């Protein structure tokens, strides 16, 4: 068999069909449109089924804590009457130490049900350990493909730690240098082993996160007799936002604001060998957050089930220095040593709670385990070795890849709003490439309206306007 890069990439569709065990083409309904809800309903699992599946492997039902000291800190720097109550859902309590166990539990259950002997996941994040942990429980093989090293052979410490965790759960770890051809290695492994593609973006993986949203709704109602006013979600590939928001909606939280937050890594190229070790966050950052928001179907499956643009009410960015600072605050004031990447939404919460009324409730929906390599001391020590400037000061002076500035006081923590309308325009440009409005059917226009949360008229106007530019 021809295993050259071009030949393997050309076999992408057939490899996917075999390794995901589902035919995505049957959900196509138009030139652009596909039946998203139909795909989620038929190929995914219902909330009740997911609760049962996760119950069998100890996933979910994580505690939620009120962060009294951090709330007090915010109120000190907030205008009179402002400073919402901040709560955090301790997802680090899941078997592999992050919310990713929710995604993995359903993928692994599904793979086992379909008779696959093992799973492969292309991820440098917590998802690898989650798949490895769930595969261990089900007696399945597991391979995790990671982007770890730059061309000097220097490994990103957080990814080295995640690789160690995968091996601790009995997985085989394939470590690569920087580059998008990771996908090529991933396809070759799927072909060689016949394993299941434990993609982060299948309906199974996304339906696994819905319990996170429904648990938040239930826990807040039980404790405070109201719905959360806002839920802040660290955003990267879109699954965390999509699954949590769907769970909140299934629980009936119609008025809860869904806010995504990413670490600002603007200016750094995600496939650049030179930039690779100049970032101190390997996930939850704009390098994934923005491209996946504006074009979700860049994923490793034909149709991405994670479609954040459908669910986000607001999208904000914070700096690396601010996230490290609140990670330290969470340990020192709340007794929770967690993160740091999962604390991106906590940094945003500290700024957003300041804008909200005291009576309101804002939920940070995840934490993640920490340890050697991942911890702020590990990341900052490494950054300093790579020539990044580390200092205290005004966090607005952070420059991705050059300077990490830790705030001098919590009142400096702020968010920068990312314009969702510009993300929608960018999505529309990509989705309608090669088409005019007249080429599209009603079903396509309705689909694009659902994707952008714009009216059909607005979608038509934007496509026409985009074509003129």
């Amino acid at each position: 068999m021809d295993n050259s890069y071009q030949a393997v990439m050309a076999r992408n569709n057939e490899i996917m069909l075999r390794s995901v065990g589902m035919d995505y083409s049957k959900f196509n309904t138009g030139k652009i449109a596909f039946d998203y809800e139909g795909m989620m309903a038929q190929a995914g699992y219902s909330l009740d089924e997911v609760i049962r599946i996760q119950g069998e492997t100890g996933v979910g039902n994580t505690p939620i804590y009120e962060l009294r000291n951090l709330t007090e800190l915010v109120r000190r720097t907030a205008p009179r009457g402002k400073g919402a109550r901040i709560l955090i859902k301790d997802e680090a309590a899941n078997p592999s130490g992050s919310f990713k166990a929710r995604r993995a539990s359903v993928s692994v259950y599904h793979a086992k049900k379909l008779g696959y002997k093992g799973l492969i996941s292309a991820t440098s994040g917590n998802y690898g350990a989650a798949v490895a942990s769930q595969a261990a429980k089900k007696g399945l093989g597991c391979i995790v493909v990671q982007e770890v090293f730059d061309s000097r052979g220097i490994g990103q410490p957080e990814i080295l730690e995640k690789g160690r965790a995968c091996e601790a759960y009995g997985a085989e770890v394939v470590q690569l240098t920087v580059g998008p051809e990771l996908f090529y290695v991933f396809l070759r492994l799927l072909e060689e082993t016949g394993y299941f593609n434990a993609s982060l973006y299948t309906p199974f993986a996304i339906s696994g996160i819905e319990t996170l949203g429904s648990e938040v709704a239930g826990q807040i109602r039980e404790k405070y007799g109201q719905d959360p006013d806002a839920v802040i979600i660290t955003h990267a590939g879109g699954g965390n936002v999509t699954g949590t928001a769907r769970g909140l909606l299934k629980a009936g939280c119609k008025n809860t604001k869904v806010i995504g937050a990413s670490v600002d890594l603007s200016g750094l190229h995600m496939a650049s060998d030179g930039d690779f070790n100049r970032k101190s966050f390997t996930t939850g950052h704009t390098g994934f957050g923005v491209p996946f928001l504006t074009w979700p179907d860049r994923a490793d499956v034909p149709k991405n089930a994670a479609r954040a643009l459908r669910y986000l009410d607001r999208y904000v960015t914070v700096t690396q220095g601010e996230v490290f600072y609140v990670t330290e605050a969470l340990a020192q004031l709340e007794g929770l040593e967690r993160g740091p990447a999962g604390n991106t939404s906590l940094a945003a919460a500290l700024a957003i709670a300041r804008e909200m009324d005291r009576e309101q409730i804002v939920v940070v929906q995840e934490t993640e385990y920490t340890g050697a390599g991942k911890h702020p001391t590990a990341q900052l020590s490494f950054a300093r070795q790579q020539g990044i400037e580390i200092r205290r000061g005004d966090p607005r002076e952070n420059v991705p890849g050059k300077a990490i500035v830790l705030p001098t006081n919590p009142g400096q923590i702020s968010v920068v709003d990312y314009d969702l309308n510009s993300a929608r325009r960018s999505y529309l440009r990509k989705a309608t490439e090669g088409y005019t409005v007249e080429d599209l059917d009603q079903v396509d226009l309705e689909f694009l309206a659902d994707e952008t949360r714009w009216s059909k008229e607005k979608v038509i106007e934007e496509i026409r306007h985009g074509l003129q530019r």
Partner: protein
Amino acid sequence: MKEIPAGSWVLVHSIILEPEQRAPQVPADTKKVPLEMWVKGYLEKAALPGDSVTVKTFTGRMVTGKLVEANPAYNHSFGFVPELQRIGGELRAMLAESAGAGKGSKSDG
């Protein structure tokens, strides 16, 4: 150099794509270097570091590569960052001050 016995847990390295074989979309700096891979497994036959060898991985795959070392260690650590070390104390002091202010305002009212 010491021979590594068969059955040892080892790390092997290989080049997956030479610079000229890399994907068209990769940035210029990445295009100058090969795509490299490291895999761990049990060594099939005794060999010296640098030899081309075959290993059997955790999932039972047979992988060929250049032998790097036996018993590859985890060396990632924590380090120490003085700028982080002071944050906890500062925040605790702020909270203590705020608790004091709270008591004061209560007795006033």
